[in-house]
């Protein structure tokens, strides 16, 4: 019985020692979206937040053609929780990413329109990311479409 108690105590202590430091509350949002142009190799650079990544995988996921990035504009915004929302003209989906050890890791793919988004634009809102497509708006979170489609 004593031995079991000691093992439990040690386990509790070690769990406490391993817990990571969290700074809260935090707001990781970008005030306005960034419009990025992939270069020939598919690389995009976001100067203000010093982010760069290769977007070819995203275009391949959307069009099954990694060369489709040429001449397009990729729209990107980060919400309060630090999730990155990416889409582009003619994309059917909005892609949600989070930071991984070695790049951006897809969290979710949100289907917006089977016919493709015509004029996408992201807006930062207090509780969600707003996607504007011409006259239509969609309230997005990293979990999907939050509100009713207008």
């Amino acid at each position, binding site marked *: 019985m004593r031995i079991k108690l000691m093992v439990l105590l040690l386990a509790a202590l070690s769990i406490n020692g391993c817990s990571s430091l969290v700074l809260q509350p935090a707001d990781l949002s970008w*005030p*306005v*979206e960034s419009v990025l142009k992939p270069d020939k190799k598919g690389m995009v650079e976001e100067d*203000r937040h010093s982010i760069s990544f290769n977007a070819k995988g995203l275009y391949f996921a959307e069009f099954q053609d990694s060369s489709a990035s040429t001449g397009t504009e990729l729209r990107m915004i980060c919400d309060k929780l630090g999730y990155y929302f990416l889409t582009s003209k003619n994309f059917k989906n909005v892609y949600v990413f989070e930071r991984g050890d070695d790049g951006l890791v897809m969290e979710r793919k949100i289907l917006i329109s089977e016919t493709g988004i015509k004029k996408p*634009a*992201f*807006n930062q809102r207090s509780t969600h990311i707003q996607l504007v497509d*011409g*006259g*239509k708006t969609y309230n997005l979170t990293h979990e999907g479409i939050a509100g009713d489609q207008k």
Partner: protein
Amino acid sequence: MKSNNFIITFVVLLLSGYFFLVTAQSDYAIVENFKAKSDSISSRIETADSLQQLGPVAEQIAELEQQFKVHKTLLDKSLYPYDFSRSIANLRNEFIIRQRDFITIDILQATVAELSLHVEFLNERNNELLVKIQDLEAIQNKDKKTIARLENLTTDLRASIYKRDRMVIEMVDSLMPPLMREKASLTAEDKQEIISGEEKGNVLTNVKRTINDNTTFLEVTSLKPNDLTEIKKQQGEFSKTWRYIGLKLIDVYAADEKKSGEIQTIDSLFSRWYKAVDKEAWYTIREEFAENGIQLQSFTDAEQFTAVVVAFINDEIKNIGVKSEIESKNVYDNFADSTWFASIEPNWMPYLLDNKLITDVQKDEIENKISEWKSGIYPFNWWIYLIIALVIIGAVIFIVLRRKPKSEDEVVIKE
């Protein structure tokens, strides 16, 4: 009643439609729109050619501020590194700086135009004085009255030329406001302002005329070392201002062959003026010898001067015994006592040495030659000094012997 309801419904629909459009707008588009309008105003400020063109920009800044005030929160967050208020304040500052620049340019151009009138008047006056001096200089045997008149006219002309020079320097200086001078390269607008200022004051022509008149003045007058020192100082000031502005003018008139040619002419006139000042010293020195009856060959630099003077003295040394003694002594006295030691050595040598127009070695060469010449004219007769010395020694011995007291023995014998 039905029509009232219809109107209300229509207005409500219209407003909701407007609201819908506003809410569906992209924040990014708003920010980019603000940036584009702000950049456009900034470029209008930069490219404005005049105060009149700049005028409406103040209203445009106010309109921009009013139009985007509603998006202040978004813009404050998005306009990194500035916020909305700072961006508007920056535009206003740009406007004020440019406005100040135009006001300075307007004042400077008015100054150039005003100075141009004064310069024109002085140009005419200087011409009249130059002609009068040339006429008087042409008279062979000048009486005291004529010489006095000539001196007065020369003084007047020198003062008048100096006054005109100051004005032309000011005109050249006024072509570019201080802000423009600090720029590494001038914009098309800056160049246009300079061209306009130059044309108003006819600056290049006046610079040419000023240098020409100064050179002519040196050619028709005989000046003292102090006058030349003053002229050199004035020349330095003028040249310094011209070097600075002239370099910029080369850039301004790069495409204008005629004006580029004028700038090159001014540069060559400057070197002619520099040479004329140096030449004037040698010319006046030769004149001073001539006034005392010593006719030297002409010379325009220290090397020639030394060679001419040494050759003259060598000739005179050779002629000792050939010419009469009185004649030889007269030439020496006129050369050495009345000219060299009376005027050249005390008055001109400090000027020539200070301005590096002659070296100490050259000066010593001439003075050694004068000593050699003097020894020939007035030889050192050692035997006269020997006789004088012997006479003096004899006289001293005689006096000493006479005063020697008589011995005691001699006294006793007498008793």
